[in-house]
């Protein structure tokens, strides 16, 4: 699973570098510098962010940055729409600094997301994974630089570069439900339409309007359905790529009226069309990537819902309090919420889950397997170690590969747990390499 993540990240990296190398073919130095600096800055900033700021805030920051990038695509699309998309390659006036800064931003975004996608767990494994991935990236970089000139002759439309890079970043984000932008977008759209329709009809004040028969009300009801949010979100999602694609199409071809011989004229037109078609590659590719991102987002079950554990601290009385509702976080949303409590070197991962109408709190480990943790998939949680599916209803019951339950109390202020009890239960019940059942006799 971690391997799959790593491979995906590397693949995206290769595509990103390949595209950028093609977009700024004449600017290899600026490209390399910007890329390297951006990547390093992004990862370091990412680590710093997660270390310094607790809870959901780092995700919020990264998500906001992504949203800003997405919104900037609209600006790009608007500019392209009014200015045309003549190939950037035709204008050698793109300055090194501009290239370097652009590339820096993209690479930094990638670095940030890379940190988010790293496995949690002991710090060592995280750094090892990062080191491995960075090494592999370096290797890929070399290969990609070699391969890039072999690519077919595809030009880069103006605006295509940012479209391409941002869409790749959004794709990575869509792989993790916490960073995904598409679902919140659809939610917003749905809410907006909902509110609008509500107020619009409220102002008419007539539920039994003589002109509105039931079937018409049914159509109005359609506006409230989930589908509206999805399709509306989808429409907005694709505006930038569609905009740039259409702008490329819309752009008038240079006049060939001065050429007298018809066959020659046609040949010129054909060449121009071919060139324009090449410029369409990147916007269309970006569109595909965006589609993949939207798909990932609406089919999150492809990956187990497995949020990064939130670090929690015990108060002076040795009690950990998890608020049931805190901003975006709602413990009763039926998804598992992971937490990490650390006392000295001892880390305790546990999660809270609302199922069968009750909250339950269990360790992120069972008493038999290595504590690889659990992920949630519709109706079940899976033990990553032995791949056993455990029905949600039985989470909170002891035994088998079920996560180890811990005592807790719920009141108005939230879920109360004893920190000491957590540590003790973990130490006493969770398997480590030293303590195996029976031991291969």
């Amino acid at each position, binding site marked *: 699973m971690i391997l799959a993540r790593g491979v995906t990240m590397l693949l995206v990296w290769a595509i990103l570098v390949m595209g950028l190398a093609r977009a700024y073919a004449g600017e290899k130095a600026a490209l390399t510098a910007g890329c390297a600096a951006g990547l390093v800055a992004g990862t370091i900033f990412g680590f710093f962010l997660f270390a310094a700021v607790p809870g959901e805030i780092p995700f919020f920051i990264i998500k906001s940055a992504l949203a800003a990038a997405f919104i900037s695509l609209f600006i790009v699309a608007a500019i392209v729409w009014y200015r045309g998309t003549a190939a950037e390659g035709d204008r050698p006036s793109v300055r090194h600094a501009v290239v370097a800064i652009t590339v820096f931003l993209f690479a930094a975004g990638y670095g940030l997301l890379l940190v988010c996608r790293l496995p949690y767990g002991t710090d060592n494994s995280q750094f090892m994974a990062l080191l491995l991935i960075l090494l592999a990236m370096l290797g890929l970089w070399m290969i990609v630089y070699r391969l890039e000139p072999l690519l077919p002759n595809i030009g880069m439309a103006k605006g295509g570069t940012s479209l391409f890079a941002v869409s790749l970043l959004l794709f990575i984000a869509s792989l993790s439900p916490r960073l995904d932008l598409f679902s919140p977008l659809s939610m917003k759209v749905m809410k907006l339409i909902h509110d609008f329709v509500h107020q619009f009809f409220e102002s008419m004040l007539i539920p039994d309007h003589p002109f509105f028969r039931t079937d018409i009300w049914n159509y109005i009801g359609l506006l409230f359905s989930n589908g509206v949010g999805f399709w509306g979100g989808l429409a907005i999602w694709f505006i930038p790529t569609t905009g740039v694609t259409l702008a490329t199409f819309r752009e008038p071809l240079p006049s060939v009226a001065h050429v007298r011989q018809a066959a020659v004229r046609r040949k010129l037109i054909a060449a121009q069309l071919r060139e324009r078609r090449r410029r369409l590659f990147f916007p269309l590719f970006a569109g595909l990537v965006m589609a993949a991102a939207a798909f990932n987002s609406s089919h999150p079950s492809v990956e187990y819902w497995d949020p990064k554990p939130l670090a929690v601290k015990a108060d002076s009385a040795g009690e950990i309090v998890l608020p049931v509702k805190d901003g975006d976080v709602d413990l009763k949303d039926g998804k598992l919420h992971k937490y990490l409590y650390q006392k000295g070197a001892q880390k305790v991962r546990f999660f809270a889950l609302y199922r069968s109408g009750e909250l339950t709190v269990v360790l992120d480990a069972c008493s038999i397997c290595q504590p690889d943790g659990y992920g949630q998939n519709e109706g079940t949680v899976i033990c990553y170690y032995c791949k056993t599916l455990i029905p949600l209803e039985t989470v909170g019951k002891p035994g088998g590969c079920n996560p180890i339950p811990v005592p807790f109390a719920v009141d108005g202020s939230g879920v109360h747990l004893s920190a000491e009890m957590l540590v003790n239960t973990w130490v006493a019940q969770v398997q480590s390499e030293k303590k*195996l059942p029976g031991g291969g006799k």
Partner: protein
Amino acid sequence: MLLRVLKSSLLNRPKAIVLLLLSITMGAAVATAFLGIYGEISHKMALELRSYGANILVEPAAAEDGADLDEADLKKIKTVFWKYNITGFAPYLFGIVDLEAGGKKARGVVTGTWFGKELEVEGEEPSIQGVRVIAPWWDVAGQWPQAADEAIVGVSLARRLGLKAGSEIVAGKNGRSRRFKISGVVTTGGYEEEQLFAPLPTVQGLLAKEGRISRVLVSALTVPMDDFGSRDPATMTKLEYEKWYCTAYVTSVAKNVEEVVAGSRAKPIWQIASAEGSLLKKFNMVMILLTSLALAASAIAVSTSLMASMAERQHEVALMKTLGADRLQVVTIFFGEILIISLIGGVLGYLLGDQLAELVSRIVFSSKIKSPFWLFPTAILAAFAVAAAGSVVPLRRALLIKPVQVLKG
């Protein structure tokens, strides 16, 4: 222009097109139908196979006669690690007794068991356990025993003694005897048809073996055995052992049960355990094979009809080449045609295959299936695959056409 050419070509050669469309549609339809019922069937098969009974037999470890197990351990079966995988179990206590009914005498086996006992285990949901759970195919003419002195009798024993529902039978051993009222006659298709089945406590009293049982049959949901599962746990490293213990192989579940039933040895009933795994595996193979065969067949059909039409159209190809079409342009035109046809064929095939799948599942499994949404793209892809595979040879042939030889001046 390309579209114009394709349109004219498709509209003006109905015979060839219909033939092609037919083969592609068939391919897509068969693929859709197979895949549509596939998921449904393997699920149903697993359940149906499951109903063929227990797959773990728990017996006393000691080999001597008269060794037995403690009934009190039965509850622990519901508390083992794999308790959620154990769908049911039933204890048995056998004894050879003298039977007497309506003047006829015979020696026979009386078996004490649970028919459908409500089992309460602390900390677990109450469940029903017994023969009715693990042997649902037992066919009882009459009633299952309700009271302590009711019994059911195997059909061949009943025939021998002339018993039927409502008759009475006396079983005696070592001076003790007990009168049973026959509530039903059971057909099982196995050796059980020679036995008399009565509630466990009653038989324990009769045989003076209070609280004892001879064996337990356990029915568990297991994962199919693979190479790793069939390794000897004794040879495993700690990590491997842990993984093995943690996977619901029939062997590891058996071991699990054995640990809680004192003095027992639990062994998988291999016929069922392996039949289950290998049957499903074989079924998967058959399905995949059939689907690929069907696709290959329609690809060949596509290939033949394309070949025929290519022979007809070789003048056309030669002409295009004479006009200066390069290989890509020739391929574009012909492949474009095939692509359009296969798109139509894919849609038609999907509709057809969906109906077919529904029909099959209604006839064979008498159940409705709802086709998953991914079936549609799969059907289209199958159509494309068939078309692409079928057009390789004809297209190669087209590219090899030499204008000079075809267009003799």
